[in-house]
């Protein structure tokens, strides 16, 4: 157990605020930043860092979704369908860890992140929205009011199996890496499944709480979740996610896509650094 000093608690509080802000903006838990920061920067053991990160992912998911519930941005039906795949991925995460070396998995993950980032950048000016209010969103699609285009936008879900596969993979690596997996789901849902970035982010944020819970319970049961550090990080998340939500509704979709691509490149670097050791 690491010794908890006020300065360490404050540092982790600040890191939690950054994660929470990104979570509210991009629908990712922010674990992608928090884990390398706590592991490489602060020097906590990987399981301790991953456990704190998973706790913040749950906090981000819960507070962002609580703030958005009732605004129709979260596609709850789609989220529930994809959760079946993501929870199955978490369940089999331990099995994956038995058969695939962590370093191989991490390098593979890095390559995927770069490919997805390039696709995001290539699609900067393409939107998934149908502005005709009479359009049929289909069984799993949705509609919501968007500030940027000033109207109600409608979308249909395409290639559901791809969305299910991405959710499965996200769940599969979640407990292993200490991340919620939003970084995988959001770009895939946006680039291939026809879901507007804001709806993809809100739906992913909704789901990652369930994804991270499966992993967090494991770490908690083993006593690797340090309550004081988790407390500092989770409180930081509350502050950060509030700020991110204020800013997110006004930020342009193009800017959000560029931020997502930057996050993916960062993730790729992190994976190559870890996978190389």
């Amino acid at each position, binding site marked *: 157990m690491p010794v908890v000093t006020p300065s360490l608690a404050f540092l982790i509080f600040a890191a939690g605020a950054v994660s929470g802000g990104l979570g509210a903006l991009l629908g990712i838990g922010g674990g992608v930043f928090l884990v390398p920061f706590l592991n490489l920067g602060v020097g906590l053991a990987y399981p301790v860092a991953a456990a704190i990160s998973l706790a913040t992912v749950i906090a981000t998911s819960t507070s962002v979704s609580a703030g958005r*519930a009732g605004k129709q941005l979260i596609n709850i039906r789609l989220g529930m369908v994809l959760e079946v795949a993501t929870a199955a991925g978490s369940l089999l995460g331990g099995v994956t860890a038995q058969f695939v070396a962590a370093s191989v998995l991490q390098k593979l993950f890095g390559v995927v992140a770069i490919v997805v980032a390039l696709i995001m950048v290539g699609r900067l000016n393409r939107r998934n929205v149908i502005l005709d209010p009479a359009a049929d969103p289909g069984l799993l699609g949705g509609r919501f009011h968007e500030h940027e285009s000033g109207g109600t936008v409608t979308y249909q879900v395409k290639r559901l199996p791809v969305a299910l596969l991405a959710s499965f993979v996200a769940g599969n690596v979640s407990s292993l890496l200490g991340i919620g997996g939003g970084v995988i789901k959001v770009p895939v849902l946006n680039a291939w499944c026809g879901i507007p970035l804001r709806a993809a982010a809100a739906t992913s944020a909704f789901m990652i*709480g369930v994804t991270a819970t*499966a992993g967090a319970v494991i770490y908690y049961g083993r006593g690797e979740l340090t309550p004081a550090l988790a407390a500092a990080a989770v409180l930081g998340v509350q502050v950060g996610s509030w700020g991110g939500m204020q800013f997110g509704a006004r930020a342009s979709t193009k800017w959000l896509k560029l931020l997502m691509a930057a996050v993916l490149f960062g993730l790729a670097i992190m994976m190559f650094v870890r996978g190389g050791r």
Partner: protein
Amino acid sequence: MTREAARLERIIGVVLRTGVAVSSACLAFGLLLSLFGAADLAAAVMNVGVVVLLVTPVARVVVSIVEYAAARDWTFVVLTAIVLVELAASAVFALVFNKRL
């Protein structure tokens, strides 16, 4: 959006807001206590905060099952029930077999 869907979204919002409020209050109070040296009480209070945090997403899934059942939307009752079983199974497997992550 149907009336049932709007109702479900509202109820989920209440569950999540309650979970966030209770766990944050416990964690903040515990962290303050630990700064003033009441280590045992602080640990107990923060532990409650962590457990509430972990239980909140599960509670959201349980509430969804109940609401979908009330709306007789059996497809989604089955889907959300599968999620709950998967969550329970991953916790049980990991804790019983203590596999490496």
